[in-house]
C-alpha cells in the first residue's frame, strides 16, 4: 500500500503512521503527543476553509494545521 500524507485522509478513515518528516521542534512535539511509526491514527474531522484537522491516536485527540499534517506519511490499513 503506497504512502500518502495525513491530509489526504477523509473523516472516519483509519491509517497507520509510516514516518514523520519534520524539523526537530515539531518532531519532538508530535512524539510527545503519541505520534510514532506503526501507530494507528484516525481522522476525526477537518475544519472548513482549510482549517486544522482533528485526529485521534490511542486515547488522545489532537488538532494540527494542514501544513504540519503534510509532513506525516501514513498508509491505509
Amino acid at each position, binding site marked *: 500500500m503506497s504512502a500518502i500524507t495525513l491530509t489526504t485522509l477523509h473523516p472516519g478513515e483509519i491509517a497507520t503512521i509510516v514516518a514523520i518528516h519534520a524539523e526537530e521542534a515539531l518532531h519532538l512535539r508530535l512524539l510527545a503527543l503519541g505520534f510514532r511509526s506503526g501507530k494507528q491514527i484516525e481522522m476525526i474531522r477537518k475544519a472548513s476553509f*482549510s*482549517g*486544522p484537522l482533528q485526529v485521534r491516536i490511542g486515547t488522545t485527540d489532537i*488538532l494540527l*494545521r494542514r501544513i504540519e499534517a503534510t509532513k506525516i506519511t501514513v498508509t491505509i490499513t
Partner: protein
Amino acid sequence: MKRIALLGMPNTGKSTLFNRMTGGAARVGNWPGITVELLSGRILLGGDMVEIIDLPGIYDLHGFSDDEQVVRHFLHDNVPDLALVILNTTQIERQMSLLLQLKQLDLNIVVVLNMSDEAKKFGISVDVNMMSAMLELPIFLLSAKYGSGYPDAMQAVAKALRYPTPGMAEELRSQLEKDEQIETEMAHVLKSTVQVPAQLSDSLTEKLDSVMLHPLLGLPIFFGVMYLLFQGVFFLGQPLQGIVNDLLGWFRGAALEPLFSGLPPSAQGLLLDGIYNGVATVAAFVPIIVLFFLFMAIVEDSGYLSRAAFLMDALMSRLGLDGRGFVMLLMGFGCNVPALMGTRVMRSRAMRLLTMLVIPLSLCSARLQVFIFFTAALFTAQAAPVVLFSLYLFSFGTAILTALLFKGRFKNNEPFVLELPPYRFPTVRQMTLRGWLEVRHFLRRATKFIVAGVVLVWLLTNLPPSAAPASADTWAGLIGNAMHPFFAPIGINEQLTIALIFGFIAKEIVIGALAVIYGLSGDALGGAIGHQLDWVQAYSFMLFTLLYTPCLATIATLQSESKQTGFTALSLGWSLGLAWLVSFAFYQVARALGY
C-alpha cells in the same frame, strides 16, 4: 525548608492537585536560574513545613519550547528534595515517557496517576503494584478533583521526604538523550501492567463535539455561546456594579468626609475627589472584571478553548495568530485585562506578544460606556446603533491590521499542535479558587498604578490652586492648550483633550471628567456637548478614544505579562500613533466631503 517540585504534562490536572495541596495559599515568585515567575505554596506535611513549586507543564524534558527550558533550568539550579510527578491515567500510554525521562535524573520521585475517576469510566485498568515494582518508584492512583487516593499519596510524599536528596546527574543533556531506551522500556512496562479496552467510550464528548464542531453549525454556535456568556456576565455584573458604587458612595459620605473634615480643602480634594473617587470609579468595575476572569477560566478548563481554536484557526493563522487568540480577542471586548492574562496558555512567546499587542484594540465595556453617551448625545435613535456597530468594525479592522503589520516582527516558530481534551466540567470550588487567585494577582499589581495615575491626574487638573478645577487655567488645561496643534487636525477641542488625559487612567472616567469640565451632568451634559460639537468631531473623538491608549490596569498588565518595557512602549506608541492617523484620516476626509 524542603522543596517539592510538581511536574507533569499539560492537561493532567496539575493545577487542581496544586490547589488541593496548598489550599489557595500560593504566591508567585522568582527563582534562581529562570526569568519566569512560578507559583509556590507552603504546607505542613508530616510534621514539617514544606514548599511546593508548580512547574510549567511540559511534554518532553528534552524539548525546545520555553517551558521545557524553564523546567530544566529550574531543576538544575534548585534541586528539589522530591519531584512529585503527575500523569493522566487515561493517557498513560504516551505520558510515561516523561516519567522515565525524569527517573533518569536521579531525583527522589513519587508518582501520582491522576484522573483515576475518568480512567475507571473508560474501563482502563492499571496494575499499580506491578508498575511500582517494575519502575522501582512509589505510584498512587489519584483523583485530584474528587480527592480519592489523596491521603495515601500525601503520606507517601511525607515518607519519601525523609530520605536525603540525591544529586542531579552530571551530564544532564546526555542523560536526556536516551529516547530510544525510553521507548523500549515504556513498551515493556505498559504491556505487563496496563489494559485498555478495544473501544474507548467517551460518548458525551463525542456527542457534544459533533454539535460544537459541526461543519456548518459549529461557528454560529461558537458565536452564540460567546454572546450568551457576555450577556450572562453583564446580567450578573451590572447589579453588582451598582451595589459596589452605592457602597463606596455611602462609605465616603458616612466615614471619610467626617474623618477628613478637619483637613485643608486642597488635601480633602486630593484625598476624596482625587484618590477616593478615582479609585472608586475603577473599583466599581471590579465585579465585571472578576466575572470575565471566571468566564475565561470556564472556557479554558472545560476544554472549550481548544474547540474554539479549531473553529477559528483558519482565519487566525493568516494573521500570524492562532485559533485560541480569537477567544482572547473576544474576551478583550469585555475587558482587556483577563484577555491579556489569558494569553498565558500560549507557549510561544512571539505569538503571545503579538496577541497581546492586538488585544488592547478591542472595544472593551468601559469604552462602550463612553460611546453610548456620545452617540446618544449626538445621533438620532436610529443612527446610534449603526454608529456603535461601525466603531466595533473599526476595532476589528485595526486589530486585523495590527496583526498583519506586526506578524513579521513577532514570528512564531512553535508548531500549532494542540490537544483536544475531553469536556470537563470544573467544580465550583476549582473555579472560584482559580478566579480568586487571578483577581488577587491583578488587584495587587493594578492598584499601585491606578492610585499613582489618579493622583497625577488630580494634581494636573487642580493645580495651580488659583484655577477652577479642570478648567483651561490648570496644568491639564495648559497641556491641552500646548497639544492644540496635535489635536486640532483631528477635530478635538481643549475640553475633550482634558477629558482624554483623565481617560488615560480608565475610560469610564471620561464621562465623569467631562461632567467636571463642563460643570454639568447627565442629560444637561449631553445637551451641552451636543451643542458644542458636530457629529464629525464627535465621531473623530470616539475613534481616538477607541484606539489611543488602554486603561492603566491594562498597561500594568501588559508590562507584568510581557516583562519587557520595550514591548509595552511599543504597544502604547503604536496605539497613540494609530489613533491619531485613523482620526485624522476620518476627520479630514469628512470635512473635505463637506460634512
